[in-house]
């Protein structure tokens, strides 16, 4: 586990907010005093407070992975799935978005000589880009991305620019192999050798990845995307049930967890 930088709360200025592929957008925010972040950490963004008109619906901030950062500029890649992301998609340069972060604990690094297998799907892809970027060159890194169709793929070109092996699966075959990303994972694992799996995406995908890794005796960590209200451990709303009967807070103890400790059947 990486030790965490103290989070800050600020009204960040929108530098740009442009559509990437499909329903995905790329938001760049200037966050004065941003302390940096570990791959896998996230921030809470308040789209309700975007437009400068005080409004209480939708009320809650939205958790978004920090895609990457340059100095005090952070980048978020997000998909419009509902009201909060819909509002976020409308903010214009110069406007302000409330940001609280960086939050949570990141992915750790692989052990010496371990191959890093990053498997991500849907909005989960945004959570693993920085991990791939920081491990690239220093470890043997394989990035397996899955999406429904080519357009849904987040950050495809960014990954392609890294010193990593990139493989893609799309359910409609419009990019890479036709099928699920877990099929790619299975091949990777069959290749054998010491490895560590990093999974982020829909719960079903992460569960399948965890099962595959377990069956090969390979360590697997997953990054959960629970609904959150606060993001820093006080509302207790994001709890993930643990195999031992207890529960952990996704925002504070995660979002990254060792797949083995989770009670998968009860994950919302």
């Amino acid at each position: 586990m990486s030790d965490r930088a103290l989070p800050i709360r600020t009204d960040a200025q929108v530098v740009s907010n442009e559509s990437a592929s499909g329903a995905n957008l790329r938001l760049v925010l200037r966050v004065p005093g941003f302390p940096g972040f570990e791959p896998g950490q996230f921030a809470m963004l308040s789209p309700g407070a975007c437009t400068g008109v005080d409004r209480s619906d939708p009320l809650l901030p939205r958790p978004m992975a920090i895609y990457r950062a340059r100095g005090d500029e952070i980048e978020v890649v997000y998909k419009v799935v509902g009201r909060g992301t819909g509002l976020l998609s409308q903010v214009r340069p110069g406007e302000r978005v409330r940001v609280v972060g960086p939050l949570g604990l990141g992915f750790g690094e692989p052990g010496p000589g371990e191959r890093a297998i990053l498997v991500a799907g849907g909005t989960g892809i945004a959570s693993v880009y920085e991990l791939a970027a920081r491990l690239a060159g220093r470890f043997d890194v394989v990035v397996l991305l899955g999406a429904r169709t080519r357009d849904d793929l987040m950050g495809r070109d960014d990954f392609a620019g890294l010193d990593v092996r990139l493989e893609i699966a799309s359910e409609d075959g419009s990019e890479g192999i036709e099928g699920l990303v877990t099929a790619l994972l299975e091949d990777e694992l069959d290749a054998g050798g010491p490895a560590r799996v990093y999974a982020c995406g829909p719960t079903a995908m992460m569960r399948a990845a965890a099962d595959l890794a377990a069956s090969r005796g390979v360590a697997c960590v997953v990054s959960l995307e629970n609904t959150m209200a606060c993001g820093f451990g006080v509302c207790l709303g994001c709890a993930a049930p643990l195999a031992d009967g207890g529960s952990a807070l996704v925002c504070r103890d995660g979002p990254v967890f060792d797949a083995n400790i989770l009670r998968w059947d009860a994950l919302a």
Partner: protein
Amino acid sequence: MSVDTGVDLAGIPLRNPVLTASGTFGYGSEFAPFLDLRRIGGFVAKSLTLEPRVGNLPPRIAEAPSGMLNAISLENVGVDAFVREKLPALPEGVVVIASVFETEIDRYAEVCKRLAGVGRVAGIEINASCPHVKSGGIEFGQDPAVLAQLVRAARRAVQVPMLVKLSPNVTDIAAMARVCEGEGADGISLINAVQALEVDVERRRPVLANGLGGLSGPAIRPIALRMVWQAAQAVKLPICGIGGITSAEDAVKFLLCGASAVQVGTSNYLDPAIAGEIADGIAAYAERCGFARVSDLVGALESGTG
């Protein structure tokens, strides 16, 4: 700021009338990165039970129009860990009010006893919005007789100023306030979250794993203001106003209706520094309107109305 912002809440002197609400401010130190806890009047810690408790299965929260639903249940570290680990972690000069909830009256009393004589605890808030097992799950705060027993038992166990936090899920909030006054409470806090239900039309089940949950946030503010005003008409007890406060103006509304202090809840999630801004804003409002003391705002709503 030339305005005197200090207020007295049921015998607890506060540097300003802004507290933060139980369950929305953790055990305090979670907010240290965002807010100097000395900027606000104080905070009410997450409600405590005798033993540590794990809460409900997820989903535990859901969004609602201008609000949110929660069904966290009793999850907390337990009274002993609170005293041993959480309190010492707080800087000096931070006013802490401990909140207590349990499923049986004698257990409430026992938790209060464990808090007795703990130096950092400036006051105790009895959370009466908890399902009472013996009366088939209805909240302690929903039955005047049960509420009376609870307040009486707690009063015997509590030496510091004692607030009773009322449930809004009642026909007559004034009657509940009178019960608290009659049984010797030093003050009352209201309102707790309003019992509610949100439905997932795709899965055709409640959004929350628990089914019902508590509605909080701006949506309930007009209901909370009404109840605080009604309680203030009915009793002399100091009142701590709670419900959907998002700004200094919102807080002032509660003071005008008769609250001696307020608690900020759900808004802490949206903006962990907001309680401090609200405290400053209240002072600015008082100054702008020519009030020498923030306490002069309490109950200053023009009468003959309502």
